[in-house]
């Protein structure tokens, strides 16, 4: 069974600074996807960034980038130039690549607070 671990329950960062959120996962699969989702107080989960396991290049989306270490089963999220609107819960998630259930397996989340 796959598991996702986020060891930082809470993080804080000052506006315009950089912060890194950690995520590790456990799987015996070779083909899979990894995601970071953001959940603001409104509760709506929003996809931040996605990484395909077969790609060696780390994914980037504007101020968001990941450090994907497949051998170490590590998938951290770096937020550059943090903004007040980045305040939210951040969830790391895993999905097996298979032609059936494509359920997301989530970690327990990291609460990020951005201070002015």
């Amino acid at each position, binding site marked *: 069974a796959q598991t996702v671990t986020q060891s930082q329950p809470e993080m804080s960062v000052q506006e315009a600074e950089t912060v890194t959120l950690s995520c590790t996962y456990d799987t015996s699969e070779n083909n899979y996807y990894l995601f970071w989702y953001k959940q603001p107080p409104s509760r709506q*989960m929003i996809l931040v960034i*996605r990484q395909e396991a077969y790609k060696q290049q780390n994914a980037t989306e504007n101020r968001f980038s990941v450090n994907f270490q497949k051998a170490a089963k590590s998938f951290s999220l770096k937020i550059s130039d943090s903004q007040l609107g980045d305040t939210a819960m951040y969830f790391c998630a895993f999905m097996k690549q298979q032609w*059936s*259930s494509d*359920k*997301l397996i989530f970690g*327990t989340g990291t609460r990020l607070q951005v201070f002015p």
Partner: protein
Amino acid sequence: EAGVAQSPRYKIIEKRQSVAFWCNPISGHATLYWYQQILGQGPKLLIQFQNNGVVDDSQLPKDRFSAERLKGVDSTLKIQPAKLEDSAVYLCASSLRDWQGEQYFGPGTRLTVT
């Protein structure tokens, strides 16, 4: 493009009562998911539909939870009878069946069982 719609946003019931949640996915999305998010935890998949067929319901407590997806569009999730431990946010999500892996989530329904 309209997002995933859910109703109600909040519901408070007493234990042993029944409750139903409704979800309308993004138009054209073949796959629909119901997740349960208990406070302090990440969401957990309860059931996944592909059109109106069930793909995965392995974590659905079938003695009290049921779900259906009429005509492959809207879906309802029902709990009967509710227990205190069912207090959670119930999230609906939908996706195109193209293996891009992106699921779009609705705002969720917060259920409190007293």
